[in-house]
Every structure is written in structure tokens, then in C-alpha cells.
């Protein structure tokens, strides 16, 4: 069949396309995706000659899960609508969470401020100007209690974007749940906990790679026993893409990081099927619809193969690539911000067509500030319209079988394997990071993309084409960090005089000894947070024992 199609295609090209192009040349010499990947004019069955349906695609819920990890996908249950949110103090963020839940959001996602992400309390010198700015400030269990006040942690699942100090925030969450009367094995959620992508892209690290990996494998071991419904890590391509990576680089570096974590777990003596089912992923969704869908489908297929063949996992759940999607913040423009709603819709659609398990849609104002309430609501409504009005959730993997999408999926898989093999040859991801390999690849891609925009090879509406004079921007959510900092410092001081400081000291001493030895750190962190030890105090002990990471910075 393919031969006759190829022949006929040749005839079509000679007879019809060539004469059409002679009269009206194509708009560009080369058509490419957002990532710069060349795209042909037409895809036919001849492009996917070796497609073996059962082997490459199979059925939803069946290996290699190209069409989705669940047998019924969105017909059974829609994706979780999980809007990332957090700002100012725990009181204010708690109000926003309650509002979002009231408006139909189905899961929480906490954004912490930079001092929290970096393990500094609000009264630290480096926290000046940053407290409560791009997330909520959490210094102690007390803030966490306020943050989840009135939110039933046995019913709602929570994702926390926290990496270097993830163990501490997770311990606080467990403690808050206990206070609500919810047992640890009844809570569900995710900590991002992905330090490798911090070294590569997001750059919110504290400790060097080895102790960081130890904390992570300690969490794998602890959580698989104590909080079995918790996702211990969210292996994230999101930030890698935001830093300028192509879709293939995002895919490859994320999965290579995943491989490094699984290997670390095994090296720490864990059974792969004990912890692998709780690994989750987090991808970016950019403007190029088909490229994104192909990326998500390729990701599932690669990961299933990695887990089954490379790591010999036996449980099906270990083979699943479950992922959260966030629309691409870097694609939003500060110009004509209403246009961002349209971009977000396309990107969200790609996530859904790609079979995401949960989704965050960005707000139109995020190129300028933290989302205002009205903008955050529209972002949530965008998901609801896609879910309930568009019909895209009626059937599973609706783009499966498209000549173009299948070809693109195959190509992205192949290119990603190329990177993964290269990183293996370097000795794995940590060695590759130390060499600056992924960092340089991303930087090159980011610069190429910027040049393509400047040369107008890539058009961004409102930025390099269709510009217009704009009226003044609507009011944004303005946070006065000095006000927030003063509030936090007041709370810190009150707590310091109220808590049992000798207990705090004892706990920190035990933690220090554990850090020097080989014991699992989680129980020591948990007992520390329960007596209201500050986040910064715990991180200071670990910083003293483990040291700090220093980046070789190049441009």
C-alpha cells in the first residue's frame, strides 16, 4: 500500500503542488515548530510505514501507554484542575485557596516565596524585598497551619512547588494533617522535590548534588511506607522549557533526570517497585499544539520502556508516566495581555489532547505580576470550558492515528533517546550537569529562539507584528514586601518566645547527627517541625553539614 501512496504522492507533488507554488509561492521556505523542528507540507501513511499498532500505540492503560495511562482517561474522570497559587502571607493565600475551591478548582497547588524556596526565614538579610512576593512566606508549622486552615486535607490533594527544602515542607504538611485528625496514609499530593532541574534551569538550589540526592532517596523510602498516596517527586521539564529549551530537550532532560532518580533509589537499596509508582512528572505546554501533543505521547512511551526494560520494574504502575501540565509562562507577552488568554487556551488544549493528569492554566497578567483574582478566575474558567463545552474530553487520544502526530511522536522519541544515550555516555545526569552540558544546550536554544523572533522568522502577535498603542494596564495584584516581611517577623518573634526552645535545640542536635550518619532524615525533620522549629533553622543545620552548591555560570 505504501508504495502506491508514495507514487501517488510524487504525482501529486509534480502535477499539483509545483504548479501551485509557481503561481503562489509558499509563505516561507522552511516551516518549523516553535522549537525549530522542520515540518513537511503533508503527512501520509507512507510517513509511518513501520507503525505496529499493538506495539507502538496499543490501548489506553496498556503498555507502552502512548494513548494514555488509564483505560477510560477523561471519560472516567477529568484531569485535576490545579491552579498554582500563593502570595503574601499564609492568611491571604488561605483566602485565595478557599476562593478557588469554591469556584470549582479540584486540587491545590502552593507557590512559596523565594526565601522559603531557598531555605531562609523571613527575617534573614537576603529575604529583604522578597517576602511574600512571588509566593507565600512559610517560616514554621504555624504558617502552614494557617495556610490550610479550614481546608480538609483528607479530601483535597495538594501539590507543593518546593525543591531543596521539600522534606521540611512535606513534614509540616504531615503535621498539619495530623492536627486536623487526618492520618498520614490518608493524605495525597505532590512535592516537586526535583533538584536536578534546579541545577539545570530553575536555579533554586541549596545543597550540592550528592547530599541533595540523599535527601530525595530518604523521602522515597519514608513516603512509600508512611504516606503511600503521596507523589514523592515531580520530575519537571517545565522550568527546563521556560529556560529556553526546545520541546525535545525538555522531554529528554526530564526523562534523563527521572532515570537519575530511579538509579539513585536503587543505589540507596530500595526496590524499584517500592518507590517508582509514586514518581510523577511535570511538563510545559507551549504554543505549538501538535509538537506538544507529540511530546506528551512520546514521553509516556519512552518512560514505560525505561522502567520496564532498563530498570526491570514489574508493577504496571511503575511504568506509568503520570504528569501535570502548566501552560508556558515564557510564551506570555506583556503587550496586549488579553491575547494571553488565547495562548493559554491553545496550550491547555495541547495538554488535554496529550493526556495530562492535572493542569494549571496561566493567567493573562503573569508577564507583569502575580495573577489578580479576576485573571486567575478566567484561567480556571478556560479549563472548565475545555472540559465541559469543547467536547475534546469525549474520546481518548483523539489525535492518535494522525499521520502527522504519529510521525512527530516517533521523531521526538528518537531525538530524545539520542540525548538520553549521550547523557548516559557522560556518566549520567549529575556528571552531565557538572560539565554544564544541559545548561549549554538550553542556552543555545534560548538564544536561537530569541534571534528567530528578532529576525521575524517567528512571529509573536503584539511583539514583533500587529503592534498597537495600548491603554494603561489594569490594576495588578501589588504586594508590598516590606509590609509582608514586617508581619512575618512579628509572627516569628512571637513564636520564638512561645515555643519550647530547649526542645527545638534537642531536635536540631539529633538532626545534625542524623545528617552526619546514614539514618533516614525524614523522622528527624518531622520531629523538628512539630516543635515549631523554623524552616531556616533546619536548613542552616543541613547547610552546615552538607555545604552549598556553587554554580559555574556561563553565557
Amino acid at each position, binding site marked *: 500500500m505504501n508504495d502506491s501512496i508514495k507514487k501517488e504522492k510524487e504525482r501529486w507533488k509534480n502535477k499539483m503542488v509545483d504548479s501551485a507554488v509557481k503561481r503562489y509561492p509558499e509563505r516561507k521556505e522552511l516551516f518549523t515548530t516553535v522549537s525549530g523542528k522542520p515540518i513537511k507540507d503533508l503527512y501520509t501513511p507512507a510517513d509511518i510505514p513501520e507503525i505496529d499498532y499493538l506495539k507502538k500505540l496499543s490501548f489506553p492503560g496498556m503498555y507502552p501507554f502512548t494513548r494514555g495511562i488509564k483505560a477510560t482517561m477523561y471519560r472516567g474522570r477529568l484531569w485535576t484542575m490545579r491552579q498554582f497559587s500563593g502570595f503574601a502571607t499564609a492568611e491571604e493565600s488561605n483566602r485565595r485557596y478557599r476562593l478557588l475551591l469554591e469556584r470549582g478548582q479540584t486540587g491545590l497547588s502552593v507557590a512559596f516565596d*523565594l*526565601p522559603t*524556596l*531557598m531555605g*531562609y526565614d523571613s527575617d534573614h538579610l*537576603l*529575604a*529583604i*524585598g*522578597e517576602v511574600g*512576593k*512571588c509566593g507565600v512566606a512559610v517560616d514554621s508549622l504555624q504558617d502552614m497551619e494557617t495556610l490550610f486552615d479550614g481546608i480538609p486535607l483528607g479530601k483535597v490533594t495538594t501539590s507543593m512547588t518546593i525543591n531543596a527544602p521539600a522534606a521540611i515542607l512535606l513534614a509540616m504538611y504531615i503535621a498539619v494533617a495530623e492536627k486536623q485528625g487526618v492520618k498520614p496514609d490518608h493524605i495525597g499530593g505532590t512535592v516537586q522535590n526535583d533538584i536536578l532541574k*534546579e541545577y539545570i534551569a*530553575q*536555579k*533554586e538550589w541549596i545543597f550540592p548534588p550528592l547530599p541533595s540526592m540523599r535527601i530525595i532517596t530518604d523521602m522515597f523510602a519514608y513516603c512509600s511506607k508512611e504516606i503511600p498516596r503521596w507523589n514523592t517527586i515531580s520530575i519537571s521539564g517545565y522550568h527546563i522549557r*521556560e*529556560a*529556553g529549551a526546545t520541546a525535545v530537550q525538555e522531554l529528554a532532560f526530564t526523562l534523563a533526570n527521572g532515570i537519575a532518580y530511579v538509579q539513585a533509589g536503587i543505589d540507596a537499596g530500595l526496590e524499584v517497585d517500592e518507590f517508582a509508582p509514586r514518581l510523577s512528572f511535570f511538563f510545559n505546554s507551549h504554543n505549538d499544539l501538535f509538537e506538544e501533543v507529540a511530546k506528551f505521547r512520546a514521553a509516556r512511551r519512552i518512560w514505560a520502556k525505561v522502567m520496564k526494560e532498563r530498570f526491570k520494574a514489574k508493577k504496571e504502575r511503575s511504568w506509568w508516566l503520570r504528569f501535570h501540565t502548566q501552560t508556558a509562562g*515564557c510564551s*506570555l*507577552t*506583556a*503587550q496586549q495581555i488579553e491575547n494571553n488568554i488565547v495562548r493559554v487556551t491553545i496550550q491547555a488544549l495541547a495538554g488535554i489532547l496529550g493526556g495530562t493528569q492535572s493542569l494549571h492554566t496561566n493567567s493573562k497578567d503573569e*508577564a*507583569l*505580576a*502575580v495573577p489578580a483574582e479576576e485573571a486567575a478566575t478566567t484561567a480556571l474558567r478556560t479549563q472548565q470550558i475545555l472540559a465541559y463545552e469543547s467536547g475534546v474530553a469525549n474520546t481518548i487520544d483523539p489525535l492518535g492515528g494522525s499521520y502527522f502526530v504519529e510521525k512527530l511522536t516517533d521523531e521526538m522519541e528518537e531525538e530524545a533517546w539520542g540525548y538520553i544515550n549521550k547523557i548516559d555516555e557522560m556518566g549520567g545526569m549529575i556528571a552531565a550537569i557538572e560539565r554544564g552540558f544541559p545548561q549549554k544546550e538550553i*542556552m543555545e536554544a*534560548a*538564544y536561537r529562539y*530569541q534571534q528567530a*523572533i*528578532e529576525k521575524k522568522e517567528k512571529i*509573536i502577535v*503584539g*511583539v*514583533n507584528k500587529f503592534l498597537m498603542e495600548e491603554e*494603561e*494596564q489594569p*490594576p*495588578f495584584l*501589588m*504586594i508590598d*514586601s*516590606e509590609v509582608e516581611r514586617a508581619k512575618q517577623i512579628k509572627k516569628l518573634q512571637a513564636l520564638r518566645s512561645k515555643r519550647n526552645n530547649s526542645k527545638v535545640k534537642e531536635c536540631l542536635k539529633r538532626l545534625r547527627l542524623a545528617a552526619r550518619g546514614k539514618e533516614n532524615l525524614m523522622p528527624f525533620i518531622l520531629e523538628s517541625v512539630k516543635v515549631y522549629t523554623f524552616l531556616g533553622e533546619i536548613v542552616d543545620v543541613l547547610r552546615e553539614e552538607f555545604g552549598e552548591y556553587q*554554580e559555574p*555560570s556561563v*553565557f
Partner: protein
Amino acid sequence: MSPSKGKIRVLIAKPGLDGHDRGAKIIARAFRDAGMEVIYTGLRQTPEQIVTAAIQEDVDVIGISILSGAHLYIFPRIIELLKEKGATDMLVIGGGIIPEIDIPKLKQMGVAEIFTPGTLTSNAIEFVKEKLQGK
């Protein structure tokens, strides 16, 4: 070295705790490709470290990239330190997630220009070259 005699010298700085360095690195490279001498500070520099580096390197321009929202603390501190050290002739520019409403405030403090997301690097290059022409 003044720009009329040689290359324009630029310090690209990332203050605060924010680690988003895509913009900083892109602008650093674009300035370099446009023939300027560029020094990049790396992440998490305090205003004191930035001003010290700027003076040591004898730069004509300080470009500050900040996406965390701490700009209303960081910029005035840098300008204040430059004044203290008598280095007010340095051109201070900035880029990042900065709401329009804050831009006049920053300009009043002495920041020459703020470039928000979507700015073409060529615009920033032109701006710097134009500003330094008369020097």
C-alpha cells in the same frame, strides 16, 4: 575607558534570590554579539556586590535582570550605593517582570530604562548605544 575610545563595557547582574537567568544570559550574549564587553555576575548578588563589581570593572552600563518582584527594593539600593561611591555616570537599565505602574517610580530614582518581557534585544542595544553616544 570611555565608550568613544573603545568598546562599551556592560555589567549584567542578577540580584536577589530569583534564579530565572534566561533573560540575563540572552541580553549578555546579545550585547556581546553587538560588540560590547560584557561581564555577567552570576546569580544572587547583593546590591553591594553588584556596585563593587561595576566599579572594579569600570563599566559604562549596569543591566539588572529581576523577575521576583523585589525591584522596588533592589534598584533604589543600587542607585544609592552608586551615589555614595560617586559613580553616578553609569547607565542603569533593567529588565524582567516589572509592572508598568512601577516604571515611572524606577525612572524617577535614576533608572534609565526598563525593558519588560517581549523586548527585542536590538531595542536594548540601540538604547544603550544612543545613550552613550554623547559621552
